[in-house]
């Protein structure tokens, strides 16, 4: 079975500073990896995804993530955050390659401080 660990439940960061949100996963099969963002009382919006190919993937709003198979990690990064990035971020893994049934981490609350 798949599992996802988001190591930080809360991350405060000053505006215009860089940020990294950590995600580790475990799976016995090849998987797809995702990062979603959730604003208060909203649904989930896809930030980026890794399916195959280049291990560095770029997403919306200036975010990027790097897939590291040996460390089973998929950390999310942004070089300079804005107030509007304040939200909760979820890392997710599929049941397997070719499936979009998702297992989510518990989330990381990013708070951007002016």
């Amino acid at each position, binding site marked *: 079975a798949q599992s996802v660990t988001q190591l930080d439940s809360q991350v405060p960061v000053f505006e215009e500073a860089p940020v990294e949100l950590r995600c580790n996963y475990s799976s016995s099969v090849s998987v797809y990896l995702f990062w979603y963002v959730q604003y208060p009382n909203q649904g989930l919006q896809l930030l980026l995804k890794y399916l195959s190919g280049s291990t560095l993937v770029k997403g919306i709003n200036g975010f990027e993530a790097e897939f590291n198979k040996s460390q089973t990690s998929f950390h999310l990064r942004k070089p300079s955050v804005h107030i509007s990035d304040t939200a909760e971020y*979820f890392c997710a893994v599929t049941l397997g390659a070719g499936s979009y049934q998702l297992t*989510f981490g518990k*989330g990381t609350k990013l708070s951007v401080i002016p």
Partner: protein
Amino acid sequence: GAGVSQTPSNKVTEKGKYVELRCDPISGHTALYWYRQSLGQGPEFLIYFQGTGAADDSGLPNDRFFAVRPEGSVSTLKIQRTERGDSAMYLCASSLNQETEAFFGQGTRLTVV
């Protein structure tokens, strides 16, 4: 419609009552997923439909939960004899098929009092 639509957006019900939550997927999407997100947690898988049939209902917590998709489009999640522990955000997602990206609706926030 342009996106996945869930109604109602908020539902407050009394303990023991029956509730129905509706999901309108993106037109033409054959795969449909329900997830439950408790406060402070990530979404948890409940059930997956491919067309009209439930291809995987392993995430339903108990027999009080049931979901249908009779015509392969709209889906309804039904909860009988609601308990306070059922309070959560219920999210629906749809995709063209099982092998393509899923798009999420805005969710229904269920509160059992």
